[in-house]
């Protein structure tokens, strides 16, 4: 390559990206300040999907808010159902029967697989690879079929209820689940061949958007984005809830095998490795689950004592999902605060975009795997 000696004069230019843009994963607007091909600043502008779900919660009985949680992180609704129900159970002192807990873990892990497959597919699209999307959706379809068997819904489930789950699984569910788990490892190897170690894909993502661990923690980044930066943190392991203490699984973290720790490729690859871990968890669940009731008896209308409060954390597909509930002793909560993982994860964008190429902004936003439904709530 011949080095260009001549000075090219460039001006700063402000570009508006979104809110209707195919690579912002919803209605996110980013105000980019560029100088030539260099990106100097990127300010995310959120709120286009704001419905104030927290206000809705204050006007509904506890049980009726469950369907609204599906609409927050609509790609992994089961995790949101579970986070909310766990918080209500803490303030109201409800004990979930054992089989209910096992089914909760089965459905949330299945949903995590579905969510990571979507992230895998759309990340391919963001970086110019159209085909992996179709492969990801092929297996996601199998997962959604399984979840449909349980509750009839494919995206907004409301299957997890306060005190357990809505109903026991149909008899053929476990066999179908085993079938899926048998074929799934082969499919993950296929994804790796197709996209993970694809030369073009690696050129696009390795070393791009490096997020150092200390910056990630300062911004409150959690989930695969934080683990991609080499921090081994996972609520399922650190503060095990439900039946996670009985399960064995690894928490994958980013490595410097192919490039710097915390780059876009690492964040992407953590999700692929979590697919394996989720499948591992599911295999143990299928073996260890035993018959019994799935829903606590006499939950009825929940009325926690006045002044009761609880903050529960759970590991959703995007990171730490927190629900903070304060009760005033009535049938409706005094306050429900949702700590959405994507909200903190996207706030780190300006810090990692600075100095990157303009074309890489899409690759960086995609690697954060945000869902605008839960950012805006």
């Amino acid at each position, binding site marked *: 390559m011949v080095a260009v000696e001549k000075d090219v004069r460039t001006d700063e230019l402000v570009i508006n990206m979104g809110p209707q843009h195919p690579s912002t994963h919803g209605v996110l607007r980013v105000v980019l300040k560029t100088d030539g091909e260099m990106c100097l600043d990127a300010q995310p502008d*959120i*709120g286009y999907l*704001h419905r*104030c779900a*927290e*206000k809705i919660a*204050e006007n509904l009985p506890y049980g009726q808010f469950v369907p609204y949680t599906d609409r927050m992180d609509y790609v992994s609704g089961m995790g949101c159902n579970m986070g909310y129900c766990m918080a209500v159970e*803490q*303030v109201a*002192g409800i004990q979930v029967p054992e089989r209910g807990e096992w089914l909760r873990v089965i459905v949330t892990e299945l949903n995590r697989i579905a969510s990571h497959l979507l992230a895998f597919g759309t990340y391919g699209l963001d970086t110019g690879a159209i085909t992996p999307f179709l492969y990801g959706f092929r297996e996601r379809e199998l997962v959604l079929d399984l979840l449909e068997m349980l509750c009839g819904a494919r995206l907004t489930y409301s299957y997890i209820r306060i005190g357990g789950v809505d109903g026991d699984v149909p008899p053929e569910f476990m066999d179908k689940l085993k079938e899926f788990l048998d074929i799934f490892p082969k499919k993950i190897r296929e994804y790796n061949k197709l996209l993970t170690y694809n030369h073009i894909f690696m050129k696009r993502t390795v070393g791009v958007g490096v997020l150092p661990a200390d*910056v990630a*923690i*300062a*911004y*409150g980044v*959690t989930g695969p984005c934080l683990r991609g930066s080499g*921090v081994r*943190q996972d609520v399922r392991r*650190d*503060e095990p*809830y439900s039946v996670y203490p009985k399960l064995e699984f690894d928490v994958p973290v980013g490595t410097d095998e192919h490039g710097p720790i915390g780059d876009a490729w690492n964040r992407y690859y953590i999700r692929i490795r979590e697919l394996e871990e989720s499948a591992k968890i599911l295999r143990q669940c299928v073996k260890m689950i035993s018959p019994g009731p799935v829903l606590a008896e006499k939950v009825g209308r929940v009325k926690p004592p006045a002044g*009761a*409060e*609880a*903050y*529960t*954390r759970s590991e959703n597909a995007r990171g*730490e999902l*927190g629900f*903070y509930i*304060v009760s005033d002793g009535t049938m409706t909560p*005094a*306050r429900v*605060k949702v*700590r959405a993982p994507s*909200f*903190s994860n996207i*706030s*780190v964008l300006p*810090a990692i975009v600075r100095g990157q190429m303009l074309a890489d902004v899409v690759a960086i936003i995609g690697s954060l795997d945000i869902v605008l439904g839960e950012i*805006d*709530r």
Partner: protein
Amino acid sequence: MPSVLSASGQTAADQTKARYGDAVLEIQKCATDVILKVAPGAWAEVHAFLKGQGFDLLVSICAVDWPKENKMWVVSHLYDPEGRRRISVKTESPRDAARVDSLTPLWAAANWHERECFDLSGVVFTGHPDLRRILCPEDWEGHALRKDYKAPDFYHGIANNVNLIDLDHRPPIPEIV
């Protein structure tokens, strides 16, 4: 499960109490956390101390409105990734003067959480570099999570309630400037 969780922040709470004395009004316990109830003036100091104790992750900041008692809580949740400890800090101020110091010098994460808290609950964070609305439009009136909030019927001519939509007498579409 609950007892293990709430016990994890007890030592840090006791240390904070020993250090700040009367500024820590009370150490409360709930199902999941130890809650340090502090005077509004000590909000930032206590957080700085806790951050020094290893609570590196600011998980969330939110406000709870109690109109009958004329109180506004500001609550934060912190987490220590190394020691796997959690703690919560709470402060109470009058509703119309809900004001605490910003935590942005301590955590970059505080920036957006405080903006959200200001937007929805109307709490003012002194020293915040950019205290604007974050979820609602900039010209929105009122703070939605206050208990006495009334949603406006119209916003720039757009009806907020389906019963207010009058198809026969539609307002003129405002010109885009």
